[in-house]
């Protein structure tokens, strides 16, 4: 089914995202970009750079550092911030653990994915952000398919799926009460393929783990997990070395690798065009239950 159109980025999507970012800058006092170091947040940074050019990006970046990130992602983050002259704020899940606000999970499937919501909500309150721009896309997951562009969250960061504001034409209503805040999703209408085609068109740098590389992995539940000091393994799970890459970048404890030789963007795109599994199929955090994402979003996740 590969054909030429699948290699083209629909320009209308960039125009829409830039419009949304400009509305965010204008309608809020302290908006910030939630930056994870993954391809979607890298795309958001690029869009912000283009939206306000030749002015500066009017948003700081907020990274919630779980302590379980891939080192390559952190390295990349610092390089990007440096080279574009951005303002980066980092808040640590470890601090929330030390403060006794959250407890480290235990066992084979322990991850800090759920814990980061608390750190995020604390950071939003501390830094007084009234809007947080995220790179979530509707095609990723069934609960995300229901999101508005401007998604209002209450004082506790909660998403109320049944009471969303109507969003008509391109008119965005970002008016909120004290304490509430808005999650903004400029690339709501992009698919995974659109993001890759955009990265290719814009010649963007991305963390090296998106490309094929050798790594120690274990096999568990039919997926390939990267070994790391943070992954609790059992005795039967013996690591082996394999050429892999990551299709999505979350924590080392909840992102599965795919076996791949793709070391160029073109190869990655070809791979996606032929892939039978969706992007979030490699997200271990979504597999916890049928409504895993919806539940996390209700709790304040983005």
């Amino acid at each position, binding site marked *: *089914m590969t*054909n030429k*159109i*699948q290699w*083209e980025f*629909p*320009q*209308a*999507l*960039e*125009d*829409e995202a*830039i*419009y949304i970012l*400009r*509305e965010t*800058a*204008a309608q809020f006092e302290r908006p910030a970009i939630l930056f994870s170091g993954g391809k979607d947040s890298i795309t958001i940074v690029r869009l912000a*750079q*283009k*939206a*306000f*050019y*030749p*002015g*500066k990006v009017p948003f700081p970046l907020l990274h919630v550092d779980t302590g379980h990130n891939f080192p390559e992602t952190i390295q990349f983050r610092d390089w990007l911030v440096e080279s574009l002259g951005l303002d980066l704020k980092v808040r640590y899940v470890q601090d929330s653990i030390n403060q006794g606000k959250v407890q480290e999970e235990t066992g084979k499937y322990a991850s800090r994915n759920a814990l980061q919501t608390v750190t995020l909500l604390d950071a939003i309150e501390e830094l007084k952000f009234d809007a947080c721009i995220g790179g979530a896309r*509707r*095609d990723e*997951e*069934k*609960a995300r*398919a*229901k999101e508005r562009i401007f998604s209002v969250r209450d004082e506790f960061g909660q998403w109320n*799926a*049944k009471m*969303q*504001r*109507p*969003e*008509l*034409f*391109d*008119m965005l*209503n970002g*008016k*909120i*009460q004290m304490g509430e805040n808005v999650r903004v999703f400029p690339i*709501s*209408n992009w*698919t995974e*393929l*659109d993001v890759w085609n955009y990265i290719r068109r814009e010649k963007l740098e991305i963390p090296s783990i998106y490309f094929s590389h050798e790594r120690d992995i274990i096999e568990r539940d039919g997926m390939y997990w990267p070994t790391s000091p943070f992954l609790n393994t059992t005795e039967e799970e013996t690591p082996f070395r394999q050429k892999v890459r990551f299709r999505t970048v979350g924590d080392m404890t909840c992102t599965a690798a795919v076996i791949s030789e793709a070391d160029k963007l073109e190869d990655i795109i070809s791979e996606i065009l032929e*892939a*039978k*599994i*969706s992007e979030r*199929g490699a997200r271990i955090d979504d597999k916890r239950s*049928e*409504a895993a994402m*919806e539940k996390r979003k209700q709790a304040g996740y983005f």
Partner: protein
Amino acid sequence: MVEHHNAPPLKKYNMEVLRITTSGSVDDGKSTLIGRLLYDTHSIPQDKMEALHAASKRKGLDFTDLSLLTDGLVAEREQGITIDVAHIYFSTPTRKYIIADTPGHIEYTRNMVTGASNAQVSLILIDARKGIVEQTYRHFFIACLLRIPYLVVCVNKMDLVEYSEARFNQIVEDFQQLIAKAPFKAPSIKYIPISSIYGENLATRSEKISWYSEESLLEYLEQITFDHADSSHPARFKVQSVIRPKTDAYHDFRGFAGKVVSGHFNVGDEIISLPSQQKSRIKTIEQFETQLTTAEARQSVVITLEDEIDTSRGSMLSRPENAPSLLKEIDAQVCWMDQTKLVPGKTYLLQHGVNRVKAKVQQIQHVIDVTSNTILEDRKEMGLNDIGKITLKTAHPIFADSYDANPANGAFILIDEMSNSTVAVGFVA
């Protein structure tokens, strides 16, 4: 030096994405249709398909319920209905499609309007056994009100009426009577007999419905053309912000960041800025580091002008010969979308494009009973899902066109200043 590029060719830019919305009553099969269309175009990844198998099994079904693809919320799966809009994506060699799966339940009509507001095509589903029902009237009315250019009447569940040609013809005839009474110019309409569950006439032509020799739904969608940058529409540019970098390299730079609402602008064009009514000429049109010679509807660009004129967020640039008029008294159709009722005399915030002004409801002229298409003149209030005509008075002028003449510049929303909710969408008469 920056190179000069021409804007991408009109046709391609506008053709690359087609937005579709669905409508029809509860259980008419909208979600199933979308699920099946994605299935038949091989757009559902294996892991999502497996999740659908599993979820169907948990519900005790002995088949894979494809409506679960879009009904993603827990409450939706429990009740087997759609509550909020889901946006679903797939592409064919022709283009990218965005489909809004909207709820059929009357209580969630506002979500249906949300899904429909950006669509070029509306699919109206009708259960072949039931024919036209109350929601058909309502959704047809809304599609007309929104001026959605293409409407496809999908007569669904044909399998349950033995694929009867007579039944299909009867429904087509009934629908034509409905159109004859339409208060607005009816869109282009196509009728297709389908079975969502079995994929008949969705991606490919049905063999079971051999008496129908026209296109399948997807074949029909693939050949639709439309033109956002319709040259008959006047040039409008809404200013979102002023870019003043104040760096050494851009010391005197003053650019207007915004979006072309309709028509197009060229470098060198004379423009008038509203509300200041000052005139100037376009010096540059910029898209990041690229200098364009033209910008057309829906493009996000930065425009610089030859002169320093009074222009800021909320201003509108247009050409002097066909500038919009400054409206302070507005007659508009509105669709009410909130639990709290509309009361005459109350002040709301009116948002037209990115421009917000205070607006007072002077009068409810009438409410329309959309099922019988009758006008109720003596209504004192409007409630959730009511559609009617009102008169508004604004504190400052807005620069709108009538929705009929230029839809992209003719709609607004009303925001309740107490709750901050979007309580209505309006269409300037």
